[in-house]
């Protein structure tokens, strides 16, 4: 079991790969820490940089960007009270209070250490659960894949925050965007509107950058409320022995909660950090300290967040079904490098698979090593005003979209997707389910067609094959979760 991890570390520990990992972490943190830039935007804006590299260094750098951006997001949450994403919204509560009390240093250090601990546990879990799960998944037929994808898509729409019906509609829209381009079975171009640029489909970069970077800048520019930036000096970085003692068990419990939630499709880091926070508040001897700068309130959600992010790679890498928006970005980027995550990839390209897993851990470690001494630098970045930042982000978006195939049409499409994403976001339609639908669309159709062909047009195997049936029941349960409150509210009670 551990020989796999050893192989991974052998791949990741080459000097070149370490350098790319370092570059990724540094840039990810640099961009992620800028206020008003969520980890998703940071990843969306930086991943075109990895196109120029061969697959393994590219994915390793991507992993670095991912961790850096996530950690950068927590830093902004603690120092500016501005959560970059829902997962760090909980960290804001106590983290910002600690910063106001002059304990920003310990808060940031504990966040990094708790994340690192959770990351280590998560990496071990991938090594432990990944291979058997992947082996099990090798037995999947097209029915199982369809049912599993259906469950993942529905779960991502329903369990994400926001309106479930809108989420499901966004999934359907994403699936439609995904099938734009030449149909693999018949060679017929679909929804290409005679544009040669669309024959290969709408590019992943165009969708991801447009939906997450362009749309988010537009929304941000419209609704900026004055924010209070932490301006005091960070006097003491290292947490005291007392702080460490207080955060040890919450870290462990948070890791457990996060690891559990991370594996479930659609729930991801956001729910896990919230659940971990609530758990700590329940268990605490003096719960009134929560919300007033309790270090447990930073350690537990940060650990949960990172553990979930790590175990989120289990379904992503072994089954090819990403559970969260960030994971979807990672899968899309992997696909751009010609690696479709899934059991086949795990069996056929073990060095790639385990290289990524190992570099996740190294990325985590580098984060601690790099960020703790550099916190002062990150803090000074927080003072950069948004009016300087957003044109620079637009520049990254333009160059990123253009450089995919040196074609201005990609930039136009990216602007169009951005405008659509902005309008939809205004109407409370979350972009994450759309992206997931887009990434899974072609795969879903292919498996559906194969399933129907193999069963000679009979859809019943979806419900007679046990594993497929289990996923179908899971889908039904998730839908029931959505419909239940509506029914209950309408019945006279």
């Amino acid at each position, binding site marked *: 079991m551990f020989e796999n991890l050893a192989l991974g570390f052998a791949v990741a520990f080459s000097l070149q790969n370490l350098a790319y990992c370092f570059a990724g972490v540094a840039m990810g943190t640099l961009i992620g820490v800028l206020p008003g830039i969520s980890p998703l935007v940071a990843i969306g804006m930086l991943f075109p*940089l990895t196109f*120029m590299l061969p697959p393994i260094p590219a994915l390793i750098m991507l992993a670095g960007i991912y961790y850096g951006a996530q950690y950068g997001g927590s830093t902004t949450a603690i120092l500016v009270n501005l959560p970059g994403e829902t997962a760090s919204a909980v960290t804001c509560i106590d983290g910002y209070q600690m910063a106001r009390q002059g304990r920003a240093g310990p808060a940031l250090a504990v966040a990094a250490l708790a994340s690192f601990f959770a990351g280590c546990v998560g990496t071990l879990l991938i090594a432990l659960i990944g291979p058997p799960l992947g082996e099990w998944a090798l037995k999947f037929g097209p029915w199982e894949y369809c049912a599993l994808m259906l469950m993942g898509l529905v779960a991502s729409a329903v369990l994400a925050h926001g309106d479930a*019906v*809108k989420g499901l*509609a966004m999934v*359907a*829209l994403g699936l*439609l965007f995904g*099938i734009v381009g030449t*149909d693999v*079975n*018949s060679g*017929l171009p*679909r*929804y290409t509107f005679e544009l040669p640029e669309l024959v290969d489909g709408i590019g992943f970069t165009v969708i991801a950058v447009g939906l997450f970077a*362009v749309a988010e*800048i*537009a929304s941000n*520019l*419209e609704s*900026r409320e004055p924010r209070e930036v932490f301006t005091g000096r960070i006097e003491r970085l290292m947490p005291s022995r007392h702080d460490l003692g207080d955060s040890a068990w919450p870290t462990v419990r948070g890791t457990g909660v996060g690891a559990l939630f991370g594996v479930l499709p659609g729930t991801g880091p956001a729910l896990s950090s919230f659940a971990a926070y609530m758990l700590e508040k329940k268990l605490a001897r003096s719960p009134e300290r929560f919300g007033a700068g309790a270090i447990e309130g930073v350690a537990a959600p940060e650990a949960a967040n990172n553990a979930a992010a790590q175990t989120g790679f289990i379904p992503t890498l072994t089954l090819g079904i990403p559970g969260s928006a960030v994971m979807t970005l990672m899968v899309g980027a992997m696909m751009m490098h010609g690696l479709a995550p899934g059991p086949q990839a795990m069996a056929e390209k073990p060095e790639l698979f385990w290289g990524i897993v190992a570099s996740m851990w190294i990325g985590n470690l580098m984060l601690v090593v790099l960020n703790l001494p550099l916190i002062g630098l990150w803090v000074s970045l927080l003072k950069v005003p*948004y*009016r300087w930042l*957003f*044109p*620079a982000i*637009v*520049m990254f*978006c*333009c*160059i990123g979209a*253009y*450089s995919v195939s*040196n074609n*201005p*049409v*990609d*930039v*136009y499409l*990216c*602007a*169009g997707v*951005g*405008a659509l994403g*902005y*309008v*939809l976001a*205004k*109407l*409370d339609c979350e972009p994450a389910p759309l992206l997931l639908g887009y990434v899974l669309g072609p795969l879903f*159709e292919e498996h*559906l*067609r194969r399933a*129907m*062909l193999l069963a*000679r*047009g*009979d*859809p019943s195997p979806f419900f007679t094959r046990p594993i497929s049936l289990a996923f179908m029941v899971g889908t039904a349960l998730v839908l029931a979760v959505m419909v239940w409150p509506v029914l209950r509210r*309408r019945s006279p009670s």
Partner: protein
Amino acid sequence: MEPTGGAQRLFNKDFLAGLIFLAFGLAAIHIADNDYPMGTMMRMGPGNFPVMLGGILALFGVYLAGRGLGWPAKSPAPVTWNPRPVGCIVASMLAFGFLVPRLGLVPALAAMFFLAALGGRGLRWREVLVLTVLMTAFAVGVFVYLLKLPFQLFPGVYLV
């Protein structure tokens, strides 16, 4: 131009989202129905899956639009628009795409920065100028010099 009365009721998040989904769904069905073979249950044609998706999307659209009109009873949130930021961002990207093949990276970035900056608050021209110069230098250094992307800088001027 405050929409009033009946129009006001339609400017809510559910109704407009519903309309958008309905439009996409119907368009998808229309195009697939005209141009792509449906196939059979056993051999699904290229039109089959898109029509299914379009149908689902249209249904969600109808439901949301209906909810926006007040069924089932729920007070939908109204929307307010400020077209300037998004308009400026989109315009700046279009300008970039248009100018890069014609005039090169440097003029394209200059146009992009000035148009984008128009979308922000607290615009100061001098700042925009400094930002444009610094970021253009950065882009040329990193993307063209280090990463060797084949951009022309000015008409006919290449670095790599």
